């Protein structure tokens, strides 16, 4: 069972990567990921060391010039990605995991438990994402841990809806009824029978959620609610340096370009994945939009 599932999943990834959108997206994400992960090792200067006057122009060993307090822009760009990407990946995994658990258990067990779980998640959905995050950091202060928690809480309700809808479909299948007839414990049925059949929609959802996570974390960092100074991250750099755009635009332009390339790349790949999965299961187009709508209105 698990071997064929793995083979199927591998082929979905593979087929998505072979579409134009898929490989372009992968390349874009790959380039930015390499910069983010290898960057701290390659930085020519310490990212927190003062090396000259604020907003100094490029030159004299400083390829992108200096930023708002006179630190090397390139060093800070190379050091700034490590505070966004791993957090985005972990928070996405947490949000999808929590959402999948709540959605599958609510969909499979039904009844009052289903009502309570889904209504509670509806309450979270009634707060705009960024405001939920602001609420969390309003008293406890800015920190990456809280930003991660906020992203998990933002994703969980939407993922739960998708997982619940897929579980309701899967629960009608013969292999689930077979296991029920053998009176397998519900937990084992959910893990062995339901989870593999909701894995497809969840995979597409995860790719989409990763794109959103990057955007949300970058936005929170931009608002000054993530990384604590003096350490750099791309979101915060954009905000810190925009007053000096006319003197030295690079400390704004380069992080903006990196965040844009990363999110567009992730979104292209998510789109390719959604199209391939949809072709596999439904064989019709325009499903990307429909799935988004299902996720919100189901």
């Amino acid at each position: 069972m698990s071997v064929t599932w793995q083979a199927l999943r591998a082929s979905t990834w593979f087929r998505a990567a072979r579409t134009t959108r898929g490989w372009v997206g992968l390349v874009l994400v790959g380039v930015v990921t390499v910069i983010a992960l290898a960057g701290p090792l390659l930085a020519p200067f310490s990212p927190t060391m003062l090396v000259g006057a604020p907003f100094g122009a490029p030159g004299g060993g400083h390829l992108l010039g200096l930023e708002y307090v006179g630190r090397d822009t390139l060093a800070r760009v190379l050091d700034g990605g490590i505070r966004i990407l791993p957090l985005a990946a972990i928070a996405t995994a947490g949000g999808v995991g929590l959402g999948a658990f709540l959605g599958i258990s609510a969909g499979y067990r039904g009844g009052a438990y289903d009502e309570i779980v889904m209504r509670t998640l509806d309450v979270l959905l009634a707060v705009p994402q960024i405001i939920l995050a602001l609420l969390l950091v309003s008293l406890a202060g800015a920190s990456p841990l809280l930003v991660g928690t906020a992203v998990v809480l933002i994703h969980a309700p939407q993922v739960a809806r998708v997982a619940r809808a897929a579980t309701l479909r899967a629960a009608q299948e013969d292999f689930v009824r077979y296991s029920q007839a053998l009176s397998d414990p519900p937990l084992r049925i959910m893990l062995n029978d339901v989870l593999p059949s909701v894995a497809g929609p969840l995979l597409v959802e995860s790719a989409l959620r990763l794109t959103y996570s990057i955007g949300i974390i970058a936005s929170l960092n931009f608002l000054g609610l993530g990384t604590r100074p003096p350490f750099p991250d791309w979101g915060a750099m954009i905000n810190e340096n925009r007053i000096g755009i006319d003197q030295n635009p690079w400390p704004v332009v380069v992080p903006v370009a990196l965040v844009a390339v990363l999110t567009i790349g992730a979104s292209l790949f998510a789109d390719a994945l959604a199209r391939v999965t949809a072709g596999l299961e439904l064989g019709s187009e325009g499903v990307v939009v429909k799935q988004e709508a299902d996720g919100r209105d189901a």
Partner: protein
Amino acid sequence: MVIRRILLGVLTLFLLSLLVFAATQVLPGDAAQAVLGRTATPAALHALRLRLHLERPALVQYWLWISSLLRGHPGMSLATQGPVWELVSSRLVNSAVLLALVSACAIPLSLLAGVVAAVRRDRAFDNVTSLAALAVAAVPEFVIAIALILLLASAVFHLLPPVSLVPPGTSVWSKPSILVLPVLTLTLAVFPYIFRMIRASMIEALGSEYVEMALLKGMPLRRRVLAHALPNALPPAVQAVGLTLAYLAGGVVVVEYVFGYPGIGQGLVSAVNARDLPTIQLTVLLFAGFYVMVNIVTDVISLLLTPRLRTR
């Protein structure tokens, strides 16, 4: 149906007020300490605890807060020492202006583009617009905003003011040019959602049997699109517009902050930085109330546009 939706909305708001209150005042240890910081004197801490009723049980605190809120007294700001409502109301008007302008630009534009893309499916316009919509939907709003500032207000062209600051007490209309960049940013940010939704539902409607029948009767394209396909494609579009408005409530926070636009979103960011509890609590509830209201209105409009659902 409508009454049930409204009751559910009220229930959601009630649960949410509990959540907001818990997150700001009860959960993270001592709220007074968090507001005043570690250097606060014991006397100041004691005064603030009395003011926020922190020495009472949590349920009593909640009751005191929500009952005075419902009577129209959301309390005094901890930052300015003035009434919270005065602080929030003028910002509310400015944000409403922004929201109205964005809706007026984005909704017709994206509906039109969606219909054209569906009619000329897989041609140049459709491909370019669809890809652009995918890219714009992917990047965070502040990236769109900064890109526009770089392009139109600093590095490339110096056409527009890069910030939307107005002196306190002045209307945002006193200098209309400050509205352009925030409106443009938010219009771009919401365009993809409506565009994709109307495109998908128009493609479905155009492929249906009744439109094929109209084609076989020799009906001209314009009439097939406008009189037959469009009315059936509208209900999903209304849902998309509703979602967009609800989404805009969150989008204004970052965009207002980027441009320094004196709206409620920027007010929330300032309140969070100043740890101004009463202002945070009221603002978050206003946002949620708007969201719940938009959802109810959207459902009612979809109901009116879909005769089939009315009889159910």
